[in-house]
């Protein structure tokens, strides 16, 4: 009897009450909007988003929206995280740099796919808890540094991909430098609760081009044509 009780308690403790919510999130918010990369979808199904939002926001963790995490920062809408991940085409063996760790969610999603994630957070109060959380969840391949992301992480570069999760009014030249040939960098442009456009920077030799992307959720905004 005692064994049975212990078993049920263990099952309860180990089970993830948000698993179905997460599955629904992937199905209705991400796959439904044409994010099709299997590695990205698998990572989004695996990473426990609710662990990366403040306690008071747990119930809304899988809602289709960004949420506040303090210090004027947000955890991005699930779809935007998936879309940005898919755009840099992460693979096993890749080294990825992330600028703006926030609560660590995007780093965890990337860490599910690539070998090494190096993530930099400028706000000390966010960097330490994010590092602890990633470690406690077993993401040993995600390393957090509390520093100014402007300079990138030269010693760990060059990178196959750079994901800038915090909006920046210019693309720091050191980040372009630390991008591998054929590497991709993604940068969001938008206000805290309303990411509108993403800019993809691609480096091919000396040529650097940018592409302003519209999340597929927002079809081109035109009328009367």
């Amino acid at each position, binding site marked *: 009897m005692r064994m049975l009780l212990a078993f049920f308690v263990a099952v309860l403790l180990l089970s993830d009450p948000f698993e179905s919510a997460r599955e629904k999130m992937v199905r209705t918010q991400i796959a439904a909007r044409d994010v099709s990369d299997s590695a990205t979808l698998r990572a989004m199904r695996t990473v426990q988003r609710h662990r990366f939002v403040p306690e008071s926001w747990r119930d809304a963790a899988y809602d289709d929206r960004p*949420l*506040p995490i303090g210090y004027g920062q947000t955890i991005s809408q699930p779809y935007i995280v998936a879309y940005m991940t898919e755009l840099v085409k992460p693979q096993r063996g890749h080294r990825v740099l992330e600028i703006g760790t926030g609560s660590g969610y995007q780093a965890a999603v990337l860490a599910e796919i690539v070998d090494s994630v190096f993530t930099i957070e400028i706000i000390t109060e966010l960097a330490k808890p994010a590092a602890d959380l990633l470690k406690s969840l077993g993401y040993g391949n995600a390393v957090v540094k509390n520093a100014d992301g402007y300079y990138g992480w030269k010693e760990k570069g060059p990178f196959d991909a750079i994901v800038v999760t915090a909006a920046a009014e210019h693309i720091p030249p050191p980040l*372009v430098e630390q991008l591998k040939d054929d590497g991709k960098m993604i940068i969001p442009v938008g206000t805290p609760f309303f990411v509108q456009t993403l800019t993809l920077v691609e480096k091919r030799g000396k040529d650097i081009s940018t592409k302003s992307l519209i999340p597929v959720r927002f079809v081109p905004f035109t009328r009367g044509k």
Partner: protein
Amino acid sequence: MVRLVIAVGLLSAALLAFQLVLMQLLSIVQWHHFAYMVISVALLGFGASGTFLALAREWIMKRAELALPLLMILCGTAMAIVVGVSQSSGVRFDSYLLFVEREQIGRLLLTYLAFFTPFFLGALAVGIVFVRNVDQIGKFYASNLLGSGLGGLSAVVLLWMFAPQELPAVVAFLPVLSGLLIVSAENRRGILPVGAAALALSAYFFYAPSQLQLSDYKSLKRTLNLPHAQIVHEQSSPYGLVQIVSSPALRYAPGLSLAYRGSLANRDVVFNNADWFGPVFAAQRHVTAHVLRYTTFALPYAMQERERVLVLQAKTGMFVAQAFEQHAREIVAVEAHSVAVSALKRELASSTDSLFFHSAISVHTVDPRTFLQSDTVRYDLIVLPTLDAFGGTSGVYALQEQYLLTKEAFREMWNKLTPTGAVCITSWMDYPVRNPLRALATLVETLADEGITQPRQHIAAVRSWGMVTFVMKRSPLSVQEVQNIRNFCSSMMFDPVLLPDINSLERNRFNIMQDTSFFSLVDGILSDRRKTIYSEYDFNLAPSTDDQPYFSQFLKWGSVPRIREFFGEHAFPFLELGSLIIAVTLVQIIIVAVLLILLPLFKKKMMGAGRWNVILLFGGLGLGYMFVEMVLIQRFVLFLGHPIYATAAVIGAMLVCSGLGSWVSSRLSPSLLTRIGLIVAFSILVYAVSITPILHYSITLPQWLKIVLTFLLIAPPAFVMGMPFPLGLRSLSQQREGVIPWAWGINGCMSVIAAPLAMLLAVEFGFSVVIVCAAACYALAFAVGRQPQFD
């Protein structure tokens, strides 16, 4: 009697000064659009006090000797503590989270309640005085208006003298003193200790004020999260709270070219009311690779050399530094924020390499439009400030008047150009695209007004990954200039958007846009189809005008369902936050006004046509007065050169002159109400057509003469506008004295609604419609007041 008149004046001064202080504080911790909330909450206090008097008149009148000083003292006490309450962790709201967290709605309501309290207590005291002294109402109403007028002016002085967080406690002394001034001998023993305690409390909050808690989403708060960020200089003023922040992580190079390989120096940044004001750039003529050469801002200099440059709304002088670095021989910077300019010249002199002391540069601390209208020099280049913040501002500035971006302003700029001169304006690329399209529409219509039918020959534009810069040239673009622009784009990895011979391939070469509708919209605006584009696009793109100077207001209410469908319920509010907040404020205020006015009316069973006469007469007066006041402030902004001085001058002159009118009215028969009403309605209409040309032709007068003229222009209508309310009250008192508190309440509540309503009317239809509505309000009021029948 004299003491009571003085006490009413002091209390009224405190109430208006406190209103202005709250506006300033909310602008710092949140955003400026809460100014309208403060006006509404203040007037709501007046409305609610009227209703309270209507319901508890007998009870309170029996205890008036005790209640009056006590209410004034409590009003002062509330002023001293409510800001602290509103900033406490359990009450403090964040406007950005209003549409995310339901809890924030409750917090906003608690803030309303906290701010409402001192106004309610103060207004109740004034109301009791009015009711008790209805035969002397002219004197007390005059004292009320004169006091308010002086309160407005004194608030401007106080903003220079004290830190914003100290001001509530400073203002709180006045109501306490007014209460102590009228304590009767028999109540002295009971009330004096209360007054002393209130004074001690005010003193405590003055020396230990509540710290202002900025929204997490204010630029300053986010910047202070950066490593080693610190405020190195701070200065309070009516222009706003200027703070200079230094951090090794602060760099600024908006839309920097990917061709730039150098390092970026860190810069100090100036904030005004915790909003980004501008980065500090140094004079760097010797540095060839000046970072701004790698931005689209450099387009006009890439086209040709510019000798004489005018930088309008120069802020911290980034474009001044650029013109200097580009070897302009004469640079004129115009920035109305004299405190910021002073900081650049003094505290930041080393950071700017004393740029503003260079002989090539002259600085004018005046409103840019005032400067344009009075200056006679012609320029090779006129540079305007960058539109919109990076990535959009969620429409928080939708309700800000931007007279520098109206069609009339561009026409004035056009007339200041040399034959080959140009106007330059840069915008962030937003999505859905709005700012760049409205900027282009304004340029195209300016050209059309000048009789130029081929705008493509006069406008060039280039685009980086995040910004687009437009240059409108007075003469057609030359072949050499076009070639220079192409070379500039090629070396900087920018793409041309507009050239006389543009081809579609070169538009999307380095910075590829997935949504190419931007180009078709640009072409559409340049064609004869632009009016169709304005009407069909889901956002308002038509150029703003002096009558509707809201460049950042793009929302079309008819498009709301479609926009919501596109961006979702959660995202939509952040697209046009400012417009939504003013609409929400109006709805809330109407609900509260109905609860406070109509419901008590039913309870008191005011029967027959008399009820509607009271509502229309006193409600019309409340709406009409506020409408006129708000429009006059806008009209005088351009004339006097700064919103702060225009607000102080108009409110001060209106209240003082109305106060005098009210005083004189005590000697007039209430039967004159109709005649005076017609004079008011007529003078408002005369104003609507004549004030703009009068101000335009007298703008070059010396400032002191302009202030005198302002007073002379405002005095006549304000004088007569002060008469109807006390005359109406006296007329009412002769028939039904018990209805006076209702009249007071109705007038107050309609004034409450008037503030956000005038704003919405101005945004949607323009100031001329607001002024016509004001005349209509007076006309309606006097149609029913022609033979006042309150029974």
